[in-house]
């Protein structure tokens, strides 16, 4: 079965031995979570336990609530019922707790959300300096370290508007990493990119996975899902319809809705 994506599974090189999933250490625990937009029930009975080191890919048709779900994990969206516990801290209206969770959870957005009035370096040092109170010089060293890792240290003094989409997304990843997060959320990180740039971003994400980062990734890059994820979650109409290992998920989907979805994106 060939996969119609900009980057095929064959192109993604992963060293699977490096990726280790903890058996006992729970990173995120979502229990019976519901969410409404006004009258509209967007998320229904979400139950998801993510162990430390897991790489989870979440897919599903648009409007299925996959973005909303991962945005609940760092409280960009508020849930109305059920529990979300991140790194042992339950998300409630307690603003202090929310900020604590956000410090430990990095997020990468579809449209990068870099700060256009700041240079690349300033984008990366802002949160460490103001939130973590890291001295400026040290923050800049950390930022340069991560900019080197995403392979764009030479752009440090440019503004986001001067970079290509792929470069901007790699800066966004570096910006998150500068806060030294224990969990990374990716909300369709490659959906706004040209095919040539998707690969460079995916490679950065593979690198993270190999370092044992706990990752939740909303994406339609099925090659990435197959090679990097240890679990694929399929959502439809605000609920988790099916989850499985990538091999089982792609080769033997069980739910009718999953089969229909896969038949439309895979040829």
């Amino acid at each position: 079965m060939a996969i119609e994506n900009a980057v095929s599974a064959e192109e993604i090189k992963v060293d699977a031995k490096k990726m280790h999933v903890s058996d006992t250490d729970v990173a995120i625990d979502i229990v019976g979570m519901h969410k409404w937009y006004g009258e509209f029930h967007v998320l229904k009975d979400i139950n998801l336990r993510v162990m430390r080191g897991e790489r989870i890919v979440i897919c599903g048709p648009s409007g299925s609530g996959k973005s909303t779900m991962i945005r609940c994990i760092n409280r960009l969206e508020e849930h109305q019922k059920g529990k979300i516990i991140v790194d042992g801290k339950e998300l409630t209206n307690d603003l202090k707790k929310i900020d604590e969770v956000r410090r430990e959870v990095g997020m990468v957005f579809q449209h990068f959300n870099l700060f256009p009035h700041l240079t690349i370096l300033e984008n990366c040092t802002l949160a460490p300096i103001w939130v973590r109170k890291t001295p400026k010089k040290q923050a800049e060293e950390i930022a340069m370290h991560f900019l080197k890792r995403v392979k764009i240290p030479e752009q440090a003094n440019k503004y986001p508007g001067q970079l290509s989409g792929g470069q901007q997304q790699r800066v966004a990843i570096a910006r998150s990493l500068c806060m030294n997060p224990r969990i990374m959320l990716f909300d369709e990180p490659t959906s706004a990119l040209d095919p040539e740039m998707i690969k460079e971003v995916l490679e950065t994400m593979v690198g993270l996975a190999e370092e044992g980062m706990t990752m939740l990734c909303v994406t339609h890059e099925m090659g990435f899902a197959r090679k990097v994820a240890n679990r694929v979650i399929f959502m439809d109409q605000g609920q988790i319809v099916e989850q499985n290992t990538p091999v089982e998920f792609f080769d033997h989907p069980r739910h009718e809705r999953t089969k229909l979805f896969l038949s439309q994106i895979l040829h």
Partner: protein
Amino acid sequence: MQEHDLSWVRTEMALAQAAPSSQVGAGAWMRKNLFASPFDTALTILAALALAWALPQILNWLFFSAVWSGADRTACLTTEQGGSLPAGWTGACWPFVEARLGYFTFGRYPLEERWRVILCGVIFLALLVPLLTPRIPFKRLNAILFFAVFPFIAFFLLLGGYFGLPYVETPLWGGLLVTLVISYVGIVTSLPLGIILALGRRSKMPIVKLLSVVFIETVRGVPLVAVLFMASFMLPLFVPPGMTFDKLLRALIGVALFSSAYMAEVIRGGLQAIPKGQYEGADSLGLGYWQKMGLIVMPQALKLVIPGIVNTFIGLFKDTTLVLIISLFDLLGTVKQSISGDPTWATPQTAKTGYVFAAAVFWIFCFGMSRYSQYMERRLDTGHRK
């Protein structure tokens, strides 16, 4: 079939060539900007004719026929009016402005104390110029001196009564001094107040939001003249007898509150233009509300609405002339008073000369603000700089 062969491969990459002469040079500029279409050509010719008709007359009145020196009104009178200029003469009477320049600048501020105003102006410029020049360092210290320390220096220096300086009561102040004092206070207070009101209006806290909305809508719903009247004539009715507010202070408060309501709406417009992603980006990094607003949202919002902010500043600067109705004499007020109340210079040309002078002074200040704001807009435009 050869002509239907769809396969083709470029063997050599095309090189970039110089643009044709129709694209560059003065001729191209004129064709593009002045004579692009028959309508444009007609407009260009009409404008040129209008300039050719008006410009010589204006220049003649302002400079060539103008009187440049003289001790009193007779210098600017024609023979039939009792002077020595030829009949039918018309031109500016500049000695009038020269003679009254001190009054236009300081009002009735005592002659021997005017050095205090001049010193104040020198300090003002010495702080303002480096603040507005991006290349000069120590911006933070400079801003603190300009916005926080200078008001106190100006207060003690201008008002006096301390440190052996004689007290100069505000009714003696006038002219450009009053215009600048009101403008400075209005500008320096309306921007921070406007920011707070704009944030308040978009706040999720209902009481804060309600108070901001009520304040903004009330102040915007009333003309400045009414605010000044109320501050000047109504306020004393409500405070216990014997307790007086300085009239200038009342005008300052009125103007500052008035312009802060307008400023709030301008800034709110900027806040609404900031994409939700910027808030989410800041949130996801764990920035608190004030950090998010102060470091991410406000810098971008203010940059977007520089034209609107400067528009409000310019409006405020010109609105200071309205303090005349509560008997404070700003620049225009002193000019007007000199024209109507000074028999030494009563000539048919005095009024024109005086008002042209006042207009020119206002224009210089407003044009300066406008140009500087355009410069800042270009400088701060990092969004799409390639």
